[in-house]
């Protein structure tokens, strides 16, 4: 069909698809989603850990984006905006589940300490490095997890992640640093298989630092 502004490769740009959608084209949004589905899926899956939850969040996000497309002002890339909607949907889902289960907050220090114990390598389970990393990631507070999923796993720049997470770049860096610091004791046994897994490898005292950067 005739496209008002055909890009060089003959395919409409993301922005063009979104505009068509806003103008009433019934297929444009589906096309846009198909184009970025796998990247958005990866973020939702790695943030939430569970495929069904990830699909739920992705569905919530795409319905919200479908309806709110008219408010997209183009001050970021369409993909960035889509990621932001997915990130928020994941956050909403985690909060809803938290309320439903009346669980202690994952960033509760007590609970954090419990979860920070390294997983016991069960020979029968053949705990792989991959599953260990993913399990450790799931033990992080959601904010740190999201930052690490976007920056370390999916390879977005800190600036992009900041837009997706709607926070300052410094906050993204700080969350990444704290998340990595929290992951390290859980994953150090991967580097030192001889060390008994149930003994926390780090005996350094908690640093005394002022100011919560996140």
């Amino acid at each position, binding site marked *: *069909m005739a496209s008002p502004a055909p890009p060089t490769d003959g395919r409409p740009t993301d922005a063009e698809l979104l505009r068509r959608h806003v103008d*009433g084209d019934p297929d444009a949004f*589906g096309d846009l989603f198909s*184009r970025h589905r796998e990247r958005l899926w990866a973020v939702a899956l790695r943030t939430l850990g569970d495929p069904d939850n990830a699909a739920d969040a992705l*569905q919530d996000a795409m319905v919200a984006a479908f309806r709110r497309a008219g408010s997209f002002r183009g001050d970021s890339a369409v993909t960035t905006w889509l990621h932001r909607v997915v990130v928020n949907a994941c956050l909403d889902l985690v909060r809803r589940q938290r309320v439903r289960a009346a669980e202690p907050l994952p960033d509760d220090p007590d609970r954090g300490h419990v979860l920070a114990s390294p997983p016991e390598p069960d020979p029968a389970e053949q705990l792989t490095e991959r599953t260990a990393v993913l399990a450790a990631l799931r033990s992080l507070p959601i904010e740190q997890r999201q930052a*690490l999923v976007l920056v370390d796993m999916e390879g977005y720049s800190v600036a992009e992640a900041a837009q997706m997470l709607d926070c300052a770049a410094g906050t993204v860096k700080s969350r990444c*640093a704290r998340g*990595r610091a929290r992951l390290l004791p859980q994953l150090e046994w991967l580097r030192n298989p001889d060390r008994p897994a149930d003994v926390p490898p780090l005996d350094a005292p908690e640093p005394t*630092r002022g100011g919560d950067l996140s």
Partner: protein
Amino acid sequence: MTHPGVEAIAEHLEGTLDQAEDQRVREHLRSCAECTDRADALSALPGLLRTAGEAPVMPEHLARRVDDAIADEARRRAEVPAPVAAAAAMAQPARAEKPAAAGGDATPPPVADLDVRRRRLRRMLAGGLLAAAAATVVAVGLGDMLRTSEQQAAEGAGSGAPPSAESLLQPEGRRGASDTAPGAQQAPSAAALPLVPAGLIADVAAAHDPQRPGHERRDCVASALGSDAARTGASYAVKLPGGAGSGGPTPGVVLLRPNDAPTQAVLVACSPRPRVLDRRGLGQ
């Protein structure tokens, strides 16, 4: 010597410590093998995460769930009435038969499953074909009173050769031999068509008096347009709502349905794809 915490080392590596503390950690690392080892381990984490994070392709059944939710939203938004849905389903075959009129749209959809989804949608709407066949389909031409062709040419420039209203109506097989209209033989460009004024359908609804013997909706369309030149089978241009930057008007039709249908008039734009712009009950 007090070792800095692992968090302080991580923040040092990320550059988020304040200057004094950053200096302290840097100096400590210079002389402490244990903490340097810890810093190396922290630096290796992003790579570890990258490798572990390689997500499998989204499972098909879950992807379908999201696709369906999007399709539901699209349906809800359009509130597609049967004749228009049928017209939309038929528009593509009609265009395939007239490649010249369709402007050479041979680009396949980028993703294969998209095609599947559309087929599914089309199958679902296939029931609408019957309703469409039973409907009286009237396209209204306006004649000469709305806009000069110069104005429209200025607005419609660059809109290309979208599928014509004729190609949308053709498969109906309902147009009589007398239903000729200017430009019916070729795909009319929007610039060559009269422009439909906003509020047409509301005007028609207001004008229609079912009590008057012989008073037909078609007459009301003509009177609402301020002209008695309404003809069946003609196309006209539709100014798309919210279409800033999208160019000018595109070809469209009004479909009128029989009195017993809940929705009796549908304003349809034919480009880039057939879609509903407005639907109203006419003449209660």
